[in-house]
């Protein structure tokens, strides 16, 4: 292969010829275009201000808060406001919030923060607007007491307005239970498992009946359910890490190990394609069901409508997993409008609408007296009285304190469970490794 003969290029007239001229002009134009494009790219920042006084609010959430129809409604009622939502994956969402707070720009006007991450951000109250300055003190009785308290860095500062509360239940497949010779009625089912050991026992029965399905989707979700009932999780309220010393954690771990070793788990990674397909195809019979899990099931496994049901979780139905708050980072240029949006989104009427559409359980107290909530049944789940079930759960639950690195510590433990499920490590090894990773993550 040779280079093309260079002389053929050179022998063209070297001045004033169209080729040379065009080339130069073309280059000039291209350069100008580049500069223009780069300037444009630089200029296209976020102004947040429309041309004629319209205010653009951005709201950053993860998973599905069910707010889309509410945005439409709000924009209709407030024509000068436009709302843009950015949805990210759970971990990435919180990582990004941390980065943008540190960078000093880029955070949305309203940002959702989940319970496991809340302490990380209440530790930096200077990065959020104190909602008391915008009228939040009027809203004090709206939420469960602990929900209100947890987002307060100190007695005079409130950075978050509560959205949902997790609660706990067990969602199960009636048809698979029937196939295995187990009762399908939700009260009978709940009576089968007064505690977690009996839950595992039911699991073993189920597996022995050989329906081709496993009993539960994955170890980590079972772990979250069991731990969600304990008085303490990974941290003391003074932020001491107690992952090693808290007996509840090791107990939850041991129960999960029993389940895994008994072949009860379908070993699916939550939110992976396999897990979603497992929901669709009935690869497992039960799954830990905080209220927001119902939303997943409904949107992912439409064809299974009517085959699901909801039973109370062992140990009397208390416990919690999940729940979030809406905050306003201090980078926002429109704190008043952002606050008003957040307050409206978490108001009882809107919270009820989200519940009825999606299943996310409000943390708004007055709804617990509202028959529209308490008597709500969900046909997808065989008309289960989800309103009653989750209201009871919400009112019964003891709030669990989550510390600054709760999310990372939980991830370390969950990865440990996954390693055992995958057969990569023995339970003892996995526990040791998980503890090491948890301690390092909390550092």
């Amino acid at each position, binding site marked *: *292969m*040779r*280079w093309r003969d*260079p002389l053929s290029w050179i022998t063209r007239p070297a001045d004033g010829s169209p080729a040379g001229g065009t080339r130069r002009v073309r280059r000039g134009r291209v350069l100008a275009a580049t500069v223009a494009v780069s300037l444009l790219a630089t200029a296209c920042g976020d102004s947040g201000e429309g041309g004629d006084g319209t205010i653009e609010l951005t709201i950053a959430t993860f998973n599905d808060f069910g707010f889309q129809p509410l945005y439409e409604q709000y924009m209709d009622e407030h024509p000068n406001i436009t709302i843009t939502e950015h949805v990210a*994956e*759970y*971990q*990435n969402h919180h*990582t990004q919030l*941390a*980065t943008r*707070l*540190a960078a000093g720009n880029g955070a949305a006007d309203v940002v959702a923060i989940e319970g496991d991450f809340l302490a990380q951000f209440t*530790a*930096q109250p200077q990065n959020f607007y104190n909602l008391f300055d915008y009228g939040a003190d009027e809203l004090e009785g709206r939420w469960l007491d602990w929900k209100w308290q947890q987002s307060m860095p100190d007695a005079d500062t409130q950075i978050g307005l509560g959205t949902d509360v997790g609660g706990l239940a067990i969602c199960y497949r009636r048809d698979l239970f029937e196939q295995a010779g187990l009762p399908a009625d939700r009260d009978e089912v709940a009576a089968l498992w007064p505690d977690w050991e009996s839950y595992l026992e039911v699991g073993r029965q189920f597996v022995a009946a050989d329906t081709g399905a496993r009993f539960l989707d994955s170890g980590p979700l079972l772990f979250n359910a069991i731990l969600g009932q304990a008085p303490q999780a990974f941290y003391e309220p003074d932020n001491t890490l107690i992952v090693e010393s808290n007996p509840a954690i090791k107990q939850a771990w041991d129960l999960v190990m029993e389940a895994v070793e008994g072949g009860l788990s379908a070993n699916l*990674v*939550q*939110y*992976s*394609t*396999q897990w979603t*397909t*497992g929901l669709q195809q009935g*690869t497992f019979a039960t799954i830990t069901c905080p209220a927001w899990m119902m939303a997943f099931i409904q949107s992912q496994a439409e064809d299974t409508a009517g085959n699901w049901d909801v039973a109370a979780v062992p140990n009397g139905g208390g416990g919690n997993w999940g729940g979030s708050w809406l905050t306003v980072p201090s980078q926002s240029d429109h704190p008043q409008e952002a606050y008003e949006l957040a307050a409206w989104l978490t108001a009882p009427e809107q919270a009820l609408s989200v519940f009825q559409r999606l299943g996310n359980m409000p943390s708004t107290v007055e709804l617990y007296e509202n028959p529209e909530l308490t008597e709500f049944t969900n046909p997808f789940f065989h008309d289960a009285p989800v309103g009653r079930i989750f209201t009871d759960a919400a009112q019964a639950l003891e709030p669990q304190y989550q510390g600054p690195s709760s999310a990372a510590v939980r991830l370390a433990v*969950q*990865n*440990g469970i*996954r*390693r055992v499920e*995958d*057969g*990569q*490590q023995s339970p003892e090894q996995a526990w040791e*490794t998980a503890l090491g990773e948890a301690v390092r*993550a909390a550092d």
Partner: protein
Amino acid sequence: MKRSGPQTRAVAGPAAPGPGAAPPPPDPARDPGRTERGPGRGAGATRPRLGFRHRLQRTDASVSPYLYVAPFFLLFLGFMLFPLGYTFYVSLNDWNLIGAEARSFTGLENYRTLLADPNFWNALRNTFSIWLLSTVPQLLLALGLAHLLNARLRGKTLFRMGVLVPNVASLVAVTIIFAQLFGRDFGLINWLLGLAGVGPIDWQAGTASSHIAIAVMVVWRWTGYHALIYLAAMQAIPRELYEAASLDGAGSFQMLRSITIPALRPVIIFSVLISTIYGMQIFAEPLLFDPKPGSVTGGAGRQFQTLTVYLYEQGFREFDFGYAATIGWVMFLLVVAVALVNYALTRRISSTR
């Protein structure tokens, strides 16, 4: 500029490795700009017409090179050289992006921690393992493929373009596709294996299986590219050599050993260097292979977490910039060391054949 003779010196082909690092030429010591003559030619040798003009030309000749190089060099200095140096400085600090603690100078503490960190060694092992599993098959297959492509084919452009398609497709897209193909329950590959009676393999869960899967991705992506550059080098070998050898009674394989491979030596060196550099920095594949969305640990047991993923985890999840910079710097030293070893080895192997 045309030179005759069987010399086939490989000049760096346009490399499009993802990370953006391209390899050095095969003989950095030899100045490839041999066309430059010594001083004495050019303006200085002609008689000046006007004093002013001469001085202008002289100024132009001495100043303008700097002007030409300036934009490049300023950007290069600012955005490439400076960060490289500054990384070392960052690694000497306990520097957390969002921590409340003040940044403090800790000297080589980060390096000590790193060398004692089992996750680092794990990432290192993973990186090497994947690199080995992908580089060797890649290059061998590329040689074979080049040999096939060297024939007098009909539609040779189609074939050549076809083998390059994997290289131009979006890396992220490809990784996502392959992650699905290698899925445990519904992946195509497990289905095919099932037809052959082999049980479903949990590709992501195991160490060896995940390394193989990722290596398959890399091999799929790069074999065609390497095949093309081998092909180019093969085509530059004059036929007379082969004809002479076959007249002497040499068999195909002997010709391969004594003519083809030595002639391909510079290109093989180049090829090995590219795949080494790419292999050491592999990022998208291990990151996106994890079934758990948003995971940066390379699997629940870090079974396929490579060095770059570890760097990303430490720097942009844990926000421990000092530690991440340490990882980066150690990676750099490793790349240099491995590249040098590769260079020496490949040179040795190719020359003794």
